[in-house]
C-alpha cells in the first residue's frame, strides 16, 4: 500500500506539487494522469525518494518510505537511458545489483523476460546495438528483475510502435496479475482507461479528479452520440438536445444537453439525412480529461 499525504514541492518560486494526497491500494494498477508539466514526474521522484518533499508524508507498506524501500520498488522512468557500451546481460546484472540482487538471481530472472520479448539472442550484445523498442523492453526488465512488490512505470509506452505497445501492455497487466501493485503515469488517457483500476488526474501540481475508473466515468462523463450519415446535418448545431458538436462532412459527434435523450436526436435526423450509423458513446477518460482541463491546461 502506498499512501501519500499532503505532499508539496517547490523549486524556487515554482510550485511543482501542492498538497497532493492519494492512496494506491495493493494489487491495483493505479494511473497518475495529467498534462505535461502537471507535476507527475516530481510526484514520482518524491515517492521514489529521489527528491524530498518540502512537506507532507509518504508511507510505503505502513511506514515512512526509506532508502531501503527502494529495493522493493521497481522503476521505469519517463526519461530512459542505459550505458551503450555495456552488454544487455551486464547492464541488467548491474542494475539488479544496485537493488541488492545477486548475479545468479538476476541471471535466472532475466531469461524468461528476454524470451518473452524475443530478445534472448541479444543477451550478449551491446545496448547501443539495440533498437529503441528493444532498449525500452530491456529497461522494463531492469525495473522488475529484482522481483519488486511495487512497480512504478512513468509513461511506459511513449515512443513505441503499436506492436511493441501491445507487448509491453500485456507484460504490465501480467505483472499485476502476478500480484504486483503497479503505479502507472501517463498523459495517454486511452492507455490509462484500458489498463488502470483507479486514477488520479493532476494539473498544476494539484489533484483534479480521482477515484476508480468506473466511478470517474460515471461522475464526470457526459453522454454523447456519434452519427455517420449522407446529407447535411448542420441543423443539429442549434438543436435543444445538443450541447456541443464535433462535425465532419459525413460524421458528427454530439454531446447531449442535460435532460435530453439520444432518441430526440435520432428523431430530428429522420427524413432529413440518410443515417448510416447511430451510436450512443460511453464517455471516455480522454473526453473527461479534455472537458475538465481543456480550459485550464497551460502547466
Amino acid at each position: 500500500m502506498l499512501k501519500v499525504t499532503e505532499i508539496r514541492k517547490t523549486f524556487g518560486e515554482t510550485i511543482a506539487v501542492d498538497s497532493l494526497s492519494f492512496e494506491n491500494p495493493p494489487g491495483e494498477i493505479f494511473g497518475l494522469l495529467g498534462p505535461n508539466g502537471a507535476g507527475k514526474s516530481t510526484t514520482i521522484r518524491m515517492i521514489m525518494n529521489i527528491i524530498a518533499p518540502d512537506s507532507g508524508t509518504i508511507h510505503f507498506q505502513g511506514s515512512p518510505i526509506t532508502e531501503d524501500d527502494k529495493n522493493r520498488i521497481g522503476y521505469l522512468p519517463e526519461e530512459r537511458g542505459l550505458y551503450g557500451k555495456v552488454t544487455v546481460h551486464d547492464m541488467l546484472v548491474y542494475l539488479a545489483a544496485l537493488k541488492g540482487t545477486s548475479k545468479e538471481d538476476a541471471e535466472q530472472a532475466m531469461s524468461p523476460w528476454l524470451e518473452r520479448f524475443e530478445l534472448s539472442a541479444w543477451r550478449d550484445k551491446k545496448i547501443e546495438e539495440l533498437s529503441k523498442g528493444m532498449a525500452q523492453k530491456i529497461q522494463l526488465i531492469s525495473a522488475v528483475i529484482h522481483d519488486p512488490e511495487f512497480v512504478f512505470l512513468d509513461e511506459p509506452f511513449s515512443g513505441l510502435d503499436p506492436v511493441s505497445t501491445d507487448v509491453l501492455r500485456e507484460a504490465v497487466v501480467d505483472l499485476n496479475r502476478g500480484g504486483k501493485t503497479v503505479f502507472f503515469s501517463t498523459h495517454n488517457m486511452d492507455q490509462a482507461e484500458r489498463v488502470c483500476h483507479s486514477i488520479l488526474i493532476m494539473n498544476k501540481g494539484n489533484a483534479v479528479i480521482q477515484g476508480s475508473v468506473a466511478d470517474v466515468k460515471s461522475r464526470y462523463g457526459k453522454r454523447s452520440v456519434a452519427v455517420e450519415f449522407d446529407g447535411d446535418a448542420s441543423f443539429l448545431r442549434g438543436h435543444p438536445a445538443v450541447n456541443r458538436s464535433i462535425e465532419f462532412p459525413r460524421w458528427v459527434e454530439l454531446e447531449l444537453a442535460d435532460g435530453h435523450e439520444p432518441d430526440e436526436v435520432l428523431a430530428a435526423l429522420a427524413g432529413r439525412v440518410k443515417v448510416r450509423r447511430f451510436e450512443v458513446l460511453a464517455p471516455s477518460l480522454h473526453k473527461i480529461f479534455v472537458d475538465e482541463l481543456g480550459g485550464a491546461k497551460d502547466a
Partner: protein
Amino acid sequence: MRNSKMLKVAGMEFRLTANNRAFVIFTILGPFLIAAISILPSYLAMNSGAGNEQSIALVGNAALQAELEPAFEGSQFRVARPAELAGYGSPEDETTLRSAMQDGAIDAYIVLPAIATGSESFRYVTGGGANFQMIGAAEAIVGQVVVSLRLAEAGFEPNEVLSLSRPPGMDVVRLTEGGEQDADLTSALFTALGFTFLLYMTILLYGQSIGASVLREKSSKTVEIMLSSIRSRDLLVGKVLGKAAASLLQYAIWILMSVLFLRVLSPALGLNIQIAGGSEHFGYLVGFFLAAFFLYSSVYAALGASAEDEQHLSQLAWPVIMFLIIPMVMIGAITNNPDGAVPQFLSIFPLTSPIVMFQRLIIGSPEAWEVIACMSLLLLTIAVVALLGAKIFRVGILMTGKRPTAREILRWVRYKG
C-alpha cells in the same frame, strides 16, 4: 548496503573508464607524449644553436679585425674571408655585406668602430631571426678582446688581470633529509617539468572525464534509474572512486614503466637519463595527484550535473581550468626561484597548491610548516568543495531543459533533500 551499492557504481565506472581503447593508448603513449611536450622544448631551447656554425663578417677597424679573427677561431663562428665576399663588391662596404647576407653567403656581420676601446656598444647585424644564444656568444668573444685592449692601453698585463678577475665557479650541493647530495640541477629541472606536466594533464583529463561522464549520465537519462536505487551522494562518490581507481592503475603502470626504463633500458642503451630525487618523488606525485583529483573531480562533477551539453560544460569549466593553467604559466618563475613569494603563495592556495607545492618539493626547499599548511588547506577545501559539489550535483543532475545561470546553480546548494 549503501557502501556496497557505492562500490558497485565505482566498479562500473572503473570498467567504463579503463576498458576502452583511449585509456589503453593513453596509458602506453602518455609518458612519451608528456616528455615530448614538457621536457623536449626545454631541452631544445637549452641546446639550440649548438653545433650550428654561423658565418660572420667583420667590417671597419682593421686592427681590431686582426685581433678578433684568432679569437673567433674554435668558436661556433667562422669569420668570412674578404675573398669570399669579393663577388658582392667591396668587403668594407655594408651594402656589399647586406647583399651577401641576402644570398646566404654570411649569417651576420659585426661593425667595428674606429676607436674600439672607447666604444660602449658594437652593431651586430643579422639577416634571420634573433638567435639570442649566438648573439650572446659573439658579445662574449668581442667583449673579452676589447677589455684586453683597454687593459693593455691602461698599462696592465691583460692575461694576468683577466686571470685575477675570473670569478670562481659554484659546486651546488643540496641538503636533503638523507644528508648532503650533489644537486644535478638539470635533472631536477627536467624532473620537475615532466612531473608537473603529468600532474597538470592527468588532473585536467580526469576532471574533464568525470564532468563528461556525469553529463552523459544526465543527457542519456540513465541518472533517474540510478537514483531509484542509490542516493545521489553515493552515486557521485562511487563515480569519483571508480575514476580514481582507473587513474591509480594508470599511474602504477607509468611508474613501473619509468622504473623499468631507468633501471633496465636506459643503462642497456647507454643513455644517461636520471630522475632527480628518489622514490619519494613518486610518492609526492601520487599523493598530490589524488588530492588534486578529488578537488577538481568534485568541481567537475557539479559542473557536469549543471551543464546542458558539452559546449555548456566547456563554458562552465573555464574558470576552473584557469586555476590549473596558472602554475603552468608561472612555471618559469617557479623554477627560477622556487622559494620566492609568488611560488610560496601559489603552493598554499588550494586550487594551485597541488602542482606548485609538488614543483617546490622537487626543485625548492619549502619549510615543513608550508607543506603542512598546504595539505591542511587542501584537505579542508576538498571537504567543502565535495560537500557543495554533491549538493549541486543532486539538484543539477535532474534539471533539464534550460541552461542554468551561475546564480541559479549556487541557489541549488540551499535546496532541501
